[in-house]
């Protein structure tokens, strides 16, 4: 299982890549592995505002549904438009090709509560 060093992580198994005032968000390797084969992805519209902790999207496998929560508050500035047509990419490339949304950060302080790769690895190991 992969835990890229450059990313931040949440307890809801999302990853974040912070670049200036924009974060890219997706679900982690652990999340895709527990879901199984992903068959459907629903993403929000560009321009919508989300508060930290509110669901912005849905990921479905054959027999499970999972909400994906906004790890920080912000406005959706871009979505991965190819993802809904190729949901299987979430299984094959969760950290790269299967990024889900880019959010413009409204409150940089919210980034402080997030885990780094080592902390998340420990968190996942405790879950198992």
């Amino acid at each position, binding site marked *: 299982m992969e835990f890229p060093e450059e990313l931040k992580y949440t307890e809801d198994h999302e990853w974040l890549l912070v670049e200036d005032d924009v974060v890219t968000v997706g679900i982690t390797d652990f999340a895709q592995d527990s879901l199984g*084969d992903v*068959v*459907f992805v629903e993403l929000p519209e560009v321009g919508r505002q989300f508060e930290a902790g509110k669901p912005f999207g849905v990921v*479905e496998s*054959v027999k499970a549904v999972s909400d994906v929560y906004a790890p920080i508050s912000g406005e959706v500035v871009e979505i991965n438009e190819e993802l809904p047509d190729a*949901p299987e990419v979430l299984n094959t490339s969760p950290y790269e090709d299967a990024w889900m949304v880019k959010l413009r950060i409204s409150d940089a302080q919210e980034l402080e509560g997030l885990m780094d790769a080592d902390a998340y690895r420990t968190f996942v190991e405790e879950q198992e």
Partner: protein
Amino acid sequence: MRAGTRGLILKEKLLFEHSTPGRKGYRLPTLDVPEAQLPENLERAEITGFPELSEVDVVRHFTRLSTWNYGVDSGFYPLGSCTMKYNPKVNEAACRLSGFAQVHPMVPDRLAQGALEMMHDLQEALAEISGLPALTLQPGAGAHGELAGMLVIRAFHEARGQKRHKVIIPDTAHGTNPATAALCGYQVVPVASDGILTAAAVAEHMDNEVAALMITNPNTLGLFEGEIAEICKVVHDQGGLVYCDGANLNALMGIARPGDMGIDVMHFNLHKTFSTPHGGGGPGSGPVGVSAELAPFLPVPVVVRDEDGFRLDFDRPRSIGRMKGFHGHFGVLVRAWAYIRTMGGAGLREATEMAVLNANYVRARLEPAFHLPYKRRSLHEVVFSDRDLQGGCKTLDVAKRLIDYGFHPPTVYFPLVVAGALMIEPTETESVEALDEFCEAMLAIVREAQEDPELLKQAPRVPHIRRLDETRAARKPRLRWRAENENG
């Protein structure tokens, strides 16, 4: 090894692929009035892709399809929570009598006295069996009955000016329970049960914002909720009501009555407890029984008896309204009535006793080999888990391997409180020989898991088709056939 039979494996295309232009499977009488012309702008063109088949084509097609199915008449069908008991044949004849099958639902009441009397009789029989005095026969299935019952509960509270907004549901509940509560505008409060729900656990969540507790008794683990009377009291003391999911009534007939336990509302599944066929998914029938104080809120119409005989009563101003068209799944009601008349009170009790004996017998035979997470005395069903299975085999593999042995698998992965659940409900109509054959297959599968797990993981191999790719089906759904030249 006693394998399921393959029978004849026949290939069979889709109806549409059989179609031959010009072929017909019907013959209408000659039109005996002048042919009228529909205004052209209203008329459709030919229906693209619609089949053209002879009667023989159609009969052979569906006969062949039927051989790919497994039903209760094919063999043991221990699908937990579904009560797959034998469907008596005389009941099939009963609902087909022309005096039932050929009656229009809007004939005046005086021209349907036999039908209405049968319905009234069934209402009274279900009231006696459940201890709930007032009945509606209208809902189309269990989930529909649940919706009717929960709407009745909400209407009752609102009539008393109470805006309660929460419903307590234990973790062993069927998925329909929370879905139904949501359809009634209620917020679901889940409560953990550890196999049996305690009055203390309910009390912790109970307040005057709770409209109802939804409970299944016996619960989906096949265990009787022994604190039911205390639980009902806790709920009632705070002004709430208790809804009982009647899916498991087959464990109680003639032994105990939900109404006597303090239950206020319960739905019946006539297609489970009262032997009406499941029909490959329906039609079912989900009558609802309620306590006297909830009776005014039942859906319309209700069958009543007065000095002129039987009639459909629509004049019920506090009713929640109608759940569907007409008066319920009448053809299913006839079958259930016939079943109750055939069994009689003593026969229904015997059915319950033998259903419970069968479940306990299967439990006793399989407990040495399968992990049993909850060990209280089982009623009509027993839930094992795949925890102790060797060779990396899971519940799904056991289920698929059972098919090779000629059995329908139990319910799997439900209830959710048991990881890898195998939920077995044998029902009373199975003989000890049938149970023995099933148990021997289960024990053989446990050994196979240890010695040759691929036998399980590659199963089933006996049916004409092997495991299907559900991921493929869900990623790019193909929900209909299309002609090659058709768009879409």
